[in-house]
């Protein structure tokens, strides 16, 4: 049986982002969930981490793990932090949840020296096919809920994200494109063939 999507997602971000992060780094994970990534980085890289989330059970879970966590709004939290205070800010599968994600990315690049962004590629061919075939909201393993049970989303494609970076003088220092299994690297036609993308961004 293939691993569950949730498990794959965790491993994906964990491995790629962890490889980028130097030991002892100071990290801010926006939308940290249950603190799995921060806990892993603390154990393997001896990092100092802070997570931000809005969900009470996730906050409780971070407290249980001994992970620093802040219950509140990511944008307001960023406003409270000094310039380049964190070595890394992480937005793992978070940008598609935000209203005005460009503003958060802008703030994250002020507060952090490096920014890691990982998201599900909305331009993935299966999504396009689903839309073309049914003309309805996409339904598949990644978007399992029907319209009436879905939460508000702000999905983004690789192409859309990269042109956003270009327009805003954000340099893509590294990237990783992964196939629909979110594990196998791919380099050709990423906007069509990649299911997941992770970026290392810095301000030009």
């Amino acid at each position, binding site marked *: 049986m293939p691993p569950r999507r949730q498990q794959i997602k965790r491993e994906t971000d964990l491995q790629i982002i962890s490889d980028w992060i130097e030991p002892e780094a100071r990290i801010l994970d926006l939308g940290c969930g249950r603190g799995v990534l921060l806990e892993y980085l603390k154990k393997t890289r001896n990092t100092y981490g802070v997570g931000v989330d809005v969900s*009470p059970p996730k906050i409780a879970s971070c*407290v249980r793990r001994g992970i*620093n966590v*802040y*219950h*509140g709004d990511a944008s307001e939290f960023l406003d409270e932090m000094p310039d380049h205070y964190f070595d890394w800010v992480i937005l793992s599968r978070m940008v598609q949840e935000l209203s005005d994600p460009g503003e958060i990315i802008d703030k994250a690049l002020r507060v952090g020296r490096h920014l890691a962004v990982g998201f599900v590629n909305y331009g993935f061919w299966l999504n396009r096919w689903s839309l073309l075939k049914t003309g309805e909201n996409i339904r598949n393993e990644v978007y399992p809920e029907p319209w009436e049970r879905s939460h508000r989303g702000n999905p983004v494609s690789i192409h859309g994200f990269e042109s956003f970076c270009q327009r805003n003088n954000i340099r893509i220092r590294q990237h990783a494109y992964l196939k629909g299994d979110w594990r196998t690297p791919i380099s050709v036609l990423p906007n069509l063939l990649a299911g997941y993308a992770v970026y290392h961004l810095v301000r030009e």
Partner: protein
Amino acid sequence: MNLLRLGQLSYLWLFASMNEPPIVSTVDQPGDIGLVEWKDYTSQEVFTFECGSTLPGFTLRYETYGRLNADRSNAILICHALSGDHHCAGIHSMKDRKTGWWDNMIGPGKPIDTNRFFVICSNVLGGCQGSTGPSSINPETGDAYHLDFPVVSVRDMVRAQYRLLTDGLGLDTVFAVVGGSMGGMQVLQWGIDYPHVVQRLLPLATTARQGAQAIAFNEVGRLAIMQDPDWQNGAYPVGEGPRVGLAVARMMAHITYLSDEGLEEKFGRSRVPAAARDLFAAEFQVESYLRYQGQSFINRFDANTYLYLSKALDRFDLYGPDGRLEDEMQKVEARTLVVGFTSDWLFPPSQNRAITHALLRCGKDASYAEIDMSLGHDSFLVHAPELYELVRSFLS
């Protein structure tokens, strides 16, 4: 005094259930601590207050629950709020109608688990429940100190507790300091003044400094007391005093501990039974409730202590002369969890967040959790499974 006398005793149930922890333990509270006894610790050494005045020594009344482990590493200090005391769990006699003020939180199997921890709570310096305060006898005069009592600060309270824990109980490490409201201020001060003694800080519903609104409410309370002719410039005989003024101060303060929504849920516009009554007798249940709160308060609290402690609250300011919270927070070494409550308008979430921001800006291990409850400032005292879970996790 008739104004303040409770009209309908049959409504006592209402008062008992509104704000105080439930008398009967609920399902997820595994065990009660049962009978407890208070003790007195007396320091014979001179105590110099922050203001420069001294006392030849002092007494703190305190209680302990659970057992100190072999390596003396499992002590948790509980700090009480303005009107609280050392009796935070259990009962003093089988006749007690009420348990200690945080009995829902502290006990065997409860979030602050007395099977694991040695829990200590003392009445603050300046208090009136057995610790040295304005109503204590001044050995030099043979009369109560009244207003000759030194100006007491939150820091003085903490320094006195430190003496109790180190000199009195022989501890050199404290696993955690926990408290809400004024207790939360003491928690922060503990972390700042004794960073190598305390390992975890759990301040709840608190602030690093009060805003104008909280100071304003305290001032009204103080004036109610001082305008009462029975106050006599603080020199009233022990056991007497400005009962009307103190009751009014308590009634008003009590409103600030609750919330619009909480009061509405509990009382709405419901009325006390319509017996023959005067126009200005307690008509609505909320009036009756507040009168009861005022009445019961004057039977257990000293007016001068109220003045001193409310002033200590007003003057507490961790921002320091430069207005930078980081200067003080930089000293903290303990892991900290700050908890705010959405409906708390006395020490609102923003002030609890500000503490966390400053700690994180100093690179400290700190977390902030906000609990969505409708009961206002006093939310930290009531049955709240979400809070229990956080406390349990943080102390694990």
